[in-house]
């Protein structure tokens, strides 16, 4: 598997990143080097192996459905880059022209 420039652009979009040309070059060669290392996994026959997803052993740990440690509106907005005191503010989402 070789990653090319087109795939890098697609990944950038999926990851919501916008790399500079220089960063793109470095990441392209880094990822290919890393994938070369990862290819080693293909040596192992894993056809009959179940993927390991969780390493913890407890299943379904329940607690009562009661509100705990609630965050106030003021606290929730305290780290916001932009807010009007009641809501988080973001740039306009709907473009009426298109």
């Amino acid at each position, binding site marked *: 598997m070789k990653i090319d420039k087109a795939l890098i652009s697609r990944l950038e979009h999926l*990851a919501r990143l916008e790399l500079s040309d220089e960063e793109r070059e470095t990441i392209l060669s880094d990822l290919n080097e890393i994938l070369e290392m990862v290819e080693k996994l293909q040596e192992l026959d*894993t056809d009959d192996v179940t993927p*390991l997803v969780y390493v913890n052993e407890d299943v379904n740990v329940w607690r009562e459905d009661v509100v705990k440690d609630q965050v106030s509106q003021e606290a929730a907005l305290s780290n916001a880059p932009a807010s009007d005191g009641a809501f988080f503010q973001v740039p306009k989402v709907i473009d009426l022209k298109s």
Partner: protein
Amino acid sequence: MAKFTSLPQIQTAIAAGTLTCEALVNNYLKQIEASRQLNIYLEVYAEEALAKARELDQRYQTDPDKVGRLFGMVLSIKDVLCYKDHEVTGGSKILTGFKSLFSATAVERTTAEDAIIIGRVNCDEFAMGSTTENSFYGPTRNAADPSRVPGGSSGGSAVAVQAHTCLASLGTDTGGSVRQPAAFCGVIGMKPTYGRISRYGLLAYGSSFDQVGVLSHSIEDAALLLEIMSGPDDYDSTASQKAVPPYTQQLNFSGKTRIAYLDTALNHKSLDPEVREQCQNLIGTLQQAGHTVEGVDFEYLDYIIPAYYVLTTAEASSNLSRYDGIRYGHRSTHATDLLETYQKSRTEGFGAEVKRRIMLGTFVLSAGYYDAYYTKAQKVRRLIQEKTVEILKNYDFILMPAAPSTAWPLGENINDPVAMYLADIFTVQANMVGIPAIAIPVGQHSNGMPIGLQFMANKFKESELLAFAKWVMEIG
């Protein structure tokens, strides 16, 4: 003032009237000031720590029984653990100025027992790195040789303890981030079983790997902190429901154990000859003391790192999607619409290593590649787990170097991600399997740097691991 290496020493001195918490904190603050050039602390809570110390001294004077079990414990915390009303940045630009709305359960439980938090310490950005060079706030340096790295990602924690700027430090360990820096700095680093300590309030990196750990000078302190932080938590359903044993009362080791070492690890091409020699010396010492120490086959050693980087970057790309510049964190001023706000905020806020891992993680999770990479790595994780568990059926502990070499000079591997990743080869296994592991200092390399070795044990065998590690340190 004497350099304390355990909480009992401090509590004895306070009881004898030769020490107060205030004097202790002042002493640590002086030590912090004297080691500024190592870039350990991102923030020092001087006034707050002193106020708490005075309050504790007063309470203790009124009634010595009115103080908690961590009375006299001065802690630093890694910059990925939330501490209410204090900044936490994950060593990243993207969280500059972010203040925690709540405390991590691990932090909360230590302060509830009267630990004094003296400051937050540097780490690799979002705990991604092996040298603490990936911090937006500059690298931390090893106190044994400031031209060398302290290891990572809990490098600030390791040097904070090494340089006696606090008694112990809370770190986190996703692939060795507590044990490797502990080994590089000549201190103890303990990572408990996955799920033993709640991850609530820990900035997530690889959620199926992340675990809070302790860096300290003494096994007693590691045991006590672990005992206090462990246990079920309403805010983390992956925290184990198992009762927490009184680790501090189970530190007396006796009897004979069975210890395995991995032939493939001891003969690994990346292993420094002097580190190998230290390992072989310890094997000899243990055998002479009557323990069974045997080499075992472990054919998966060279598959650990590839599988680990597929899985953790996948989890990271998902976990770090929350940093979007909307509700908190850096927001770009150059964006004109919502998509650009996400893109530019993240691009400006994240450093090179974090971007690299997000891109790799996005790739292995993307349509068309998911099965070939992500599912494959999960299957390999199963093979590694089964084989490790099988070894631990026949043996009490697995002995390994903590790292292939000692701390290297700053800048040496920073442009070679693969070389950097491969240096985690001996620590990652414990996280892949979810078992506890401890790194202890065992000697010095001819280059002057500390050498650390680690022991791993089966899940929830923290008591046995701590007691044995204590015994090994005492005979060494």
